[in-house]
């Protein structure tokens, strides 16, 4: 057994094996994507499948390059990303506010409880026509859709987390003579940060759903609009291209949120 650098041979072997395994997983992931793309492309070229219906990777690529060159790509992508972020921000902010008010007033929390249950269970897409009539066929209806989908879950998640604050921690603060506001800012809110971060992750996903659904219904721009439009004119390449763009955008946003969450966790000494 050589212990030249303080690490045993067995441990070195263990680490090497671990590294190999991680590499193997990553390589397989890349390979899987490559194989699917090649099969798709080959299948379309050799007419195993009808490219008019399933499109093909090179056509999607050309479509995206064309849209980028014409500048439309940024208009549509920008519109959808902007609306998603705004819907996400509004839903999270509003959810946080309502959950805080409910914590503040246990009486109203109990009054509102059955209404929340009903609102939570109703499919928000069914409210679409109402939003259009009330707010007009414009971006406001799209935002309303995104907010409607995300806000109730946020309220329920955060309010539950607020209520689960350790009563002894509140007792401790009260023994210091803390006001209700101090109890909220010193323990209830910071204690709910992990839940807040989880809610943020859920909300981002829901905001994408809400925005795309809103764009299906009313918009004249955005990836949701392109998908619906492409479907109506049977341009499946346009549909696929928009989906690919959506995949890329939502993955980037998710990674940003994930990274922020880890950063905050590290700051709080939990990592």
């Amino acid at each position, binding site marked *: 057994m050589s212990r030249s650098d303080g690490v045993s041979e067995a441990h070195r072997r263990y680490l090497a094996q671990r590294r190999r395994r991680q590499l193997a997983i990553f390589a397989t992931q890349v390979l899987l994507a490559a194989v699917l793309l090649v099969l798709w492309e080959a299948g379309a070229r050799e007419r195993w499948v009808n490219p008019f219906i399933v499109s093909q990777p090179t056509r999607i690529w050309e479509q995206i390059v064309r849209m980028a060159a014409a500048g439309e790509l940024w208009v549509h992508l920008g519109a959808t990303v902007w609306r998603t972020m705004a819907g996400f921000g509004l839903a999270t902010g509003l959810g946080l506010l309502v959950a805080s008010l409910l914590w503040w007033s246990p009486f109203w929390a109990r009054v509102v409880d059955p209404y929340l249950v009903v609102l939570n269970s109703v499919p928000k897409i069914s409210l679409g026509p109402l939003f259009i009539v009330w707010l007009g066929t414009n971006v406001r209806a799209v935002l309303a859709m995104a907010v409607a989908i995300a806000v109730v879950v946020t309220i329920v998640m955060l309010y539950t987390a607020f209520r689960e604050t350790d009563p002894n*921690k509140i*007792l*401790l603060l*009260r023994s210091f*003579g803390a006001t209700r506001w101090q109890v909220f800012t010193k323990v209830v809110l910071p204690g709910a940060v992990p839940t807040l971060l989880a809610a943020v992750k859920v909300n981002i996903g829901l905001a994408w759903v809400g925005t795309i659904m809103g764009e299906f219904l009313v918009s004249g721009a955005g990836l949701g609009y392109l998908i619906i439009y492409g479907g109506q004119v049977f341009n499946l390449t346009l549909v696929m291209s928009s989906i690919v763009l959506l995949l890329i955008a939502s993955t980037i946003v998710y990674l940003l949120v994930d990274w922020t969450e880890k950063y905050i966790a590290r700051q709080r*000494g939990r990592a």
Partner: protein
Amino acid sequence: MAVVELEDVTVTYHTPSGETRAVEDLSLTVESGEFVSIVGPSGCGKSTLLSLIAGLIRPDRGQVRVGGVPVRGPNPAVGYMLQQDHLFEWRTVLDNCLLGLEVQGRRTRSAVLRVRRLLKDVGLGDFAHRFPAQLSGGMRQRAALVRTLALDPKVLLLDEPFSALDYQTRLKLEDEVSHILRTQGRTVIMVTHDIAEAVSMADRVIVLTHRPARVRREYVIDLEPRRSPVQVRESPGFSRYFRDIWRDLDVQV
């Protein structure tokens, strides 16, 4: 001079299934600089007494006075230390210890220095900027002690402060805490279910009855005071107190 006075205090708890009398016509007095332990059968309302003195609950009848003034709510002159440390995971040890000062708007530079000195006194000088998760159980409870002492309370209420610790840590901490509190001449009221802990640390042990709690008997512990609790446990008189209190508690399993 009497620092804490309870006079014919009665407390009742109300729940949908009925009312429970936790404390009835209870009177007791604690002198300045005295270390008093309160023992009693489990669920007898020991912690209720501390909540009364801390001003967290009001009695239905009777009066509670601290420093001669009737208690009307939480009072900076009283420090409350709970069974669990309840350190906030997202704050460093130092920030945890400054919590009370922060709440009371007294977090000044000199206060921070004083708390740092206290941390050093309990052996946590190097851990001021660590997070609670990085501390052992004993260290966490020491930090909780500093958090309570940071407010410089006249009266310290300890609610089974060592019961969550393993035996060795517990003995060690009893010694340390008792040394610190006696050196600083604090008035201490400690609730515990551990008779040995009560006898070895306190000047006086008050035994309560089953619910509703009343004072059953008082023992002035006369065992060469100012010796450490571990040493007190070896004094010849120790086991007599232990036996008498055990009998008073009339434990039914």
